[in-house]
């Protein structure tokens, strides 16, 4: 069973996906941080495109990063598979660069293609990222309604308001 670091290296994890040409949309806490929300997060949530080619690219990166199932109580070191990544669920993984959760869909019927029009393109440091926009992220977290979502919602709304002010 591999021992993965506790320290987050989300920029390195994100860079590894970009360099491999994986098509994905960043959702969750990292999407909020990239758009200016002052919150902390320890894992990277993505919705990936589920074409066979893209699933293969994503799986290749994950296996190179020694990805294993995070909530396997028997600690068998189970690896993700192409079938899992092409399915409809959420996979919680631990890697040598910390945690990543590839989501086949954010919600029912909200896969990569459906979410792309609700994403913003972030060009920075020679990389292009697709990031779920704040209104869609706020709506998703409002619907989820878990305590961890409720805690960040006021910050996300305030960030959206401040960004709107900046545009004026």
């Amino acid at each position: 069973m591999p021992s993965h670091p506790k320290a987050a290296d989300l920029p390195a994890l994100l860079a590894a996906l970009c360099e491999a040409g994986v098509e994905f949309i960043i959702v969750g806490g990292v999407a909020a941080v990239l758009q200016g929300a002052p919150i902390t997060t320890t894992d990277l949530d993505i919705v990936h495109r589920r074409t066979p080619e893209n699933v293969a690219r994503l799986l290749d990166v994950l296996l190179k990063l020694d990805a294993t199932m995070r909530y396997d109580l028997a600690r068998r070191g189970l690896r993700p598979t192409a079938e899992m990544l092409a399915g409809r669920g959420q996979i919680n993984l631990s890697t040598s660069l910390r945690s990543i959760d590839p989501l086949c869909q954010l919600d029912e019927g909200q896969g990569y293609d459906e979410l792309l029009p609700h994403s913003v393109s972030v060009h920075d440091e020679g990389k292009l990222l697709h990031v779920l926009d704040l209104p869609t992220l706020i709506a998703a977290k409002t619907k989820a309604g878990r305590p961890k979502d409720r805690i960040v919602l006021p910050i996300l709304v305030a960030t959206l308001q401040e960004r709107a002010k900046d545009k004026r």
Partner: protein
Amino acid sequence: MVARAAEALTIKALIEALDPEVRAAIDDVDRTLIALALQQSPWDRLRSASRMAETLARIRDAIASQGG
């Protein structure tokens, strides 16, 4: 002008969908932190958040190792 009005309506609708407790907390958010984050580039925002998460994890581990 039209885009701004549409954006204002979107924000209003999102706020109305929140429960009153969450809605009330919006006024308590420290907006200077948002302003500071918005001055950084997206990747620098992520680096800052990552470093903060690392620091919090170290503090949590230190407390746990002391039996706290």
